[in-house]
């Protein structure tokens, strides 16, 4: 998630709709696999269809056309191609004038669904692209250590110089060379300054 697009207020509204969608889906489809399919469907719609059709989102989110026309438009475009509950949810968004938030809502739906099914988002940041066997080993170790399923994101940041940084939720485990160098610098500086203050005469001579 980029910081620039993040708006706490939008997130709050998106969370309300995401929670509502998940509850409605759970009532209609008792099977967890089917629920995940519905979440994926919503995600796919937001990411592939609506993200590429800003005009369509503008129409559906705006006030130029009436609600009946909006629902009719959704029916014509998506009717028969997506499941009934997703289509009805899109209708509800139109009715409440929140269609423009579809991307954030889909994102929050995924986060909430992962939370409820015990999947933890994990980001691995390395200095270079990880070889597949190392990546597999890291993933296996993480799954074992966390005791849950994980949703893995990889990222490459050359400034780390070496080692790995693993981010689980908001917690960062920093084993990167950059982080260690920074810590060495800080400790050496602080301790040396402390010793210089304690034994000033040893380090400074007045001539």
């Amino acid at each position, binding site marked *: 998630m980029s910081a620039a697009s993040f708006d*706490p207020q939008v997130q709050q509204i998106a969370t309300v709709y995401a929670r509502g969608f998940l509850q409605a889906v759970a009532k209609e489809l008792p099977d967890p696999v089917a629920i995940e399919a519905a979440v994926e469907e919503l995600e796919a719609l937001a990411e592939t269809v609506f993200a590429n059709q800003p005009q369509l989102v503008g129409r559906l989110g705006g006030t130029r056309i009436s609600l009946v026309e909006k629902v009719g438009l959704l029916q014509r475009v998506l009717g028969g191609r997506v499941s009934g509950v997703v289509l009805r949810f899109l209708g509800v968004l139109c009715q409440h004038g929140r269609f423009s938030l579809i991307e954030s809502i889909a994102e929050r739906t995924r986060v909430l669904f992962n939370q409820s099914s015990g999947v933890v988002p994990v980001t691995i940041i390395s200095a270079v692209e990880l070889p597949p066997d190392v990546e597999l080993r890291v993933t296996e170790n993480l799954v074992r250590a966390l005791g849950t399923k994980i949703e893995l994101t990889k990222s490459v940041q050359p400034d780390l110089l070496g080692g790995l940084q693993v981010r689980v*939720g908001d917690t960062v485990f920093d084993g990167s060379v950059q982080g260690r160098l920074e*810590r060495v610098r800080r400790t050496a500086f602080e*301790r040396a300054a402390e010793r210089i203050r304690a034994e000033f005469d040893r380090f400074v001579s007045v001539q």
Partner: protein
Amino acid sequence: MAVKFNADEIASVIQQEIQQFDDKIDVREVGTVLEVGDGIARVHGLRGVAAGEMVEFPGGVQGLAFNLEENSVGVIILGDYLKIQEGDQVKAMGQLLSVPVGEAVVGRVIDPLGNPLDGKGPVSSSERFPVERIAAGVAERHPVHEPMQTGLKAVDAMTPIGRGQRELIIGDRKTGKTAVAIDAIINQRGKNVKCFYVAVGQKDSSVAGVVSKLQEMGAMEYTTVIVSGASSPAPLQYVAPYAGTAMAEYFAFKGGHCLVVYDDLSKQAAAYRELSLLMRRPPGREAFPGDVFYCHSRLLERSVKLSKELGSGSITSLPIIETLEGEVSAYIPTNVISITDGQIYLQPDLFFAGVRPAMNAGISVSRVGGAAQVKAMKNVSGSLRLDLASFRELEAFAQLGTDLDPATQQRLDRGYRMVELLKQNQYVPLEVADQIMVIYAGTKGFLDKIPTTDVRRWESEFLAFVHNSKADVYQLLEANLNNGAAMKDEANEVTKAVRGAIEEFARRFQKSAT
């Protein structure tokens, strides 16, 4: 004389430290800066951060988690916020804000985080105290019973302050509020009291003036000046009084006595209002947030006289509040008046009439200090405050008419002389025994025959006379300060000795030629 750094030695120390460096994986809670400006930042993430926990921005700038919201954390930035950018990573430090404490801070001029501002090098102290701390409870306290002498006749006689008390100094701008507090600090010389002067939102030039005066009077030896001037960001101004109190607590918990001056809390309230509005907390009366009372009450509640079991230490505080046009019923003044154990009210018209300190005796009170006042002083000044207040009324009334009966005229004359006697120059605090003698002379009518214009000359010459020729009387009074009969019974030997000295001096005092 040239100072040479021994580079090889320094390099070898650094090398040793690097060799001994034992690294573990660093585990930190992090977040991302969403927006930043005006001393605050809104951060996404930091899900496990506690309210009041310290966070670190890139470049080492520190912040304080202030608002915990559903989707973001409001952070106040304790440093240069211009270096922080949107998207920067913020690390939770897992600890509360703390400041260096101990002997190392005494005699220093520092900012609210303990960074030096006096060019004397870093404050090297191994101990730190949290800035926010819950005040001592009922069982940990002892009622106020020892005096904290300010050296000002008007204050020590009429609104005595005890160790552990909170006495508000309130008044308009330019009425001598800081002067009262600085005199109180100067008077602690040799009395084993550590002083802390917290300057909030002051002009740096005024603070520099105060520091140089304290240095000149030898008061910096036992004083710490904590400065967050008018140019400091609001978060630092908000934190400064708490930081000063934390430094005082170190000494109080070791059984020492401290005096803390908060100059002034109106500016701190304004800084807190700024922060709260930026954080979008709902504004209340005068746009202050709802918890501005708590902001001051939890600060002043930390002033304490500790119980014997905890070492009998104390923190006395002199908060200062600036009023606008004498408006004491504004929000912050009423709040702080209700929190403190009394107030010294300074009035501009008295100040400009030359009555300095410009204390209004009628509405200045000390709710607990009476118990702490030395007995001899209590005996001479018992009714002084009420007498002066009634004199003010009488004076206003007398201006209307012309004919006054002799009794009224006599009360007026006595009043004029007492007002004159209670005037005192800045930076010349008086010892309590000196104060007792001159107030005794005034209240017993020894000055009634002295022209009003000569009263202050009489006072200074009398004190010089006692110190030079009557040292035995002075010592006798000093030894009997807490003797209940001293200066009360006319037959008491102390009273007799002081009376004798006054009478002897009266015979040789030369009135000015008119």
